């Protein structure tokens, strides 16, 4: 299957699609696309994120990497947000002396959830294409990619979510903080410092069996932080009208609102929030340019706790380079001070994690198509440079948890949205399943 090679176009074709290159199927890296890095930028990237063992860079090799994203259906814009970060990394790494990266991108649809069949076929495609590793979104395509990853020993990295209900599944790893529990803890730490009188919190999340474990974990994290949980307010994923939720919140009369819902749902909640009669401070854990565009002024004064990344005011050189080339390359995406967004940055970061893994595998005389070797390379030393936080040319670190396969440690930030721009309020490091390091006020 697969086989025909498409070259990614450099002109940022306005085909009405968000991404610049690569249909489903294999995409060979065109070094010209993604912009040509300057010598200084190359130097910086290599220093901050290049492989720790400089003798094994994989130069001259072609590395086939699978990618599963929603190319169709209502959530297809996630494909743009996520895969574009990965594409950019795939275009930069060869310029830095790394392997040529062949992205084998597959669709899993997003009509009424995830098209299970398509997700399953995607993992078979990865197997057929000899992908030892694949990158995915929407939590392992809601689990449908996981049996394939286990069966065919394809290391699967999901950089869009925490491990959620799939913690500890072999070959399935998620490169975010234990989302959203870590984020909730950081938010509560911040509330304790800034609004000491606030003691009661409501957790707003998706209703439904699939989301109950995460909801329960958020409630537990809130209680652990010493707060009273007034209750939970839940609506089905994909809800556009949140008025019933406001009623539920109103009746609970909490001091703060922990808004755990994601994406459009979160944007719609906030869009309607201003006229709901509710006045409590809201902490959300999902903020991006498309959401900002959807909710507009609805985001005013809302707190956001997510990865420490403000594209308008990059704290480190890696972020600067990423932001520069991302904006240059993906012009047709919702722009603004909040673009690119932390998820895109995370998928860019994934590319460099992969490069490090490749270097380790090559040093052990292993093969890049061997998912088991890649997984043990990850387990050998689960700490990697992070694009988030850090300063100058010193990156912060992320560390995977070998048991849960999510991140045990990851830099997070508390931001407040002012005039459609995020303002950094505090930073902290997510630790463990729901803990957080000391909060540093900005």
């Amino acid at each position, binding site marked *: 299957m697969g086989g025909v090679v498409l070259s990614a176009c450099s002109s940022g074709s306005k085909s009405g699609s968000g991404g610049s290159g690569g249909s489903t199927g294999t995409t060979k890296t065109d070094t010209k696309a993604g912009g040509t890095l300057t010598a200084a930028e190359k130097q910086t990237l290599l220093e901050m994120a290049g492989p720790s063992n400089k003798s094994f860079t994989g130069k001259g090799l072609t590395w086939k990497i699978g990618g599963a994203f929603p190319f169709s259906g209502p959530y297809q814009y996630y494909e743009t947000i996520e895969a574009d970060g990965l594409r950019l990394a795939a275009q930069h790494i060869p310029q830095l002396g790394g392997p040529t990266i062949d992205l084998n991108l597959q669709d899993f649809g997003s009509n009424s959830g995830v098209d299970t069949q398509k997700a399953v076929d995607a993992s078979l495609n990865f197997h057929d294409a000899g992908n030892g590793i694949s990158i995915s979104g929407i939590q392992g395509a809601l689990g449908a990619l996981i049996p394939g990853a286990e069966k065919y020993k394809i290391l699967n990295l999901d950089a869009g979510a925490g491990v959620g209900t799939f913690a500890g599944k072999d070959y399935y790893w998620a490169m975010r903080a234990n989302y959203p529990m870590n984020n909730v803890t950081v938010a509560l730490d911040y509330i304790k410092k800034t609004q000491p009188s606030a003691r009661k919190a409501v957790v707003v999340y998706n209703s439904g069996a699939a989301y109950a474990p995460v909801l329960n974990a958020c409630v537990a994290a809130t209680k652990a932080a010493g707060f009273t949980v007034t209750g939970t307010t839940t609506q089905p994923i994909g809800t556009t*009208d949140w*008025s019933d939720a406001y009623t539920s919140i109103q009746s609970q009369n909490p001091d703060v609102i922990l808004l755990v819902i994601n994406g459009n749902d979160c944007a719609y909640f906030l869009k309607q929030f201003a006229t709901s009669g509710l006045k409590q401070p809201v902490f959300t854990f999902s903020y991006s340019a498309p959401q900002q565009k959807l909710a507009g002024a609805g985001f005013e004064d809302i707190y956001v706790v997510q990865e420490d990344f403000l594209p308008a005011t990059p704290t480190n050189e890696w972020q600067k380079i990423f932001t520069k080339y991302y904006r240059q390359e993906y012009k047709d995406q919702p722009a603004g001070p909040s673009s690119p967004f932390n998820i895109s940055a995370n998928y860019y970061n994934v590319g460099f994690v992969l490069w490090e893994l490749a270097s380790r595998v090559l040093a052990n005389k292993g093969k890049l198509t061997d998912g088991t070797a890649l997984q043990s390379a990850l387990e050998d030393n689960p700490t990697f440079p992070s694009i988030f936080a850090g300063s100058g040319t010193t990156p912060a670190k992320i560390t995977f948890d070998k048991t849960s396969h999510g991140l045990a440690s990851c830099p997070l930030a508390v931001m407040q949205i002012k005039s459609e721009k995020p303002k950094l309020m505090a930073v902290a490091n997510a630790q463990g399943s729901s803990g957080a390091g000391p909060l540093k006020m900005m």
Partner: protein
Amino acid sequence: MAAEVLTPLTTTNFAQLTANGVVTGSSYALVAVGFGMIIHIAHRFHIAYAAIYALMAFLAAQIQTTYGWPFVPALIVATVIGVIIAVGSERLVYSPLVRRVGDRDRALFPVFVASLGLSTAIEALINIIWPNPVTTTFGVSAIKLGPVHMTSLTVTSVITTWVAILLVAAVIRWTKLGRMIRAVRVNPSLSVDFGIKPSSMYMIVFAIGTSLGGIGAVFLAAQSAPESDMGENLVLYAITAAFIAGAASSPWVIGVLALAMGLIQSWSTFFISSTWSSFVIFAILLIFVMTKAIRAVNWGRLARGRPKYGSGLVKPAEPALAQPSPEPSAQESQQRESGVGQ
């Protein structure tokens, strides 16, 4: 188990959830009346209604953002385009299909399948044209009625909804056009004798039905944003309302039923998790049809040879059909095929 907490049943909450239910129910009502007219009068299982609904919402949003048009003109232009597509599918797809099959009731399923195809295609087309969300602008301000919070947008949409529905109901009830539409609903072939062209009536019905949807879609999208699948559940709810109301009922009856469904959904959050809010409606549909089915079973006949009087295999006609009918067999075949509205 899930730690989902239900909203406690207090007077304030009840008032607020009732208001919410009225808002949601009104958006259901527009689709129910629009879709209901098309299924009941033109007998087209026009499932692509959902896709055209979403398309109109996207068009209106795009017109507002690209050209900076105000809300109302954008709504009108988007609706006109939606109407053209809907009437076009009636002219180019449904009506030729019915002509070929020869009978609008027997053509029901082919029309349903063709409409499913159109629906899939239009939704995918929307996703190609609008890969990223499109925003709408509507100056929203909060309105407080006693303990109940509403917004200028929702109040406007509720008022517009019911004005539109009552207007359509009035047209059908009291105007010449309405009489013609009713005649076509009851018996299209007979209405030809009175100089009514069923095909024109069907197109008018498609136009009115789609316009109602356009209003609903654009208002709904203004509350959040257009999404390619925004009409899907609404059409399923519309099916529920339209069939429970019955073919012969006035648009406002269908509308009120849809409103009731919105209220039931809203109130149901007092008792069960919101996960089940669409289930509640589908269960109503299932129970309604199942009850109808169980009533239709002649249990005496099921047990072989036990004579019993009761409903027969041929359903009695609704009175409108049983009026002076020159051909007993024509009358009977009408009964046999229709099944609607009993």
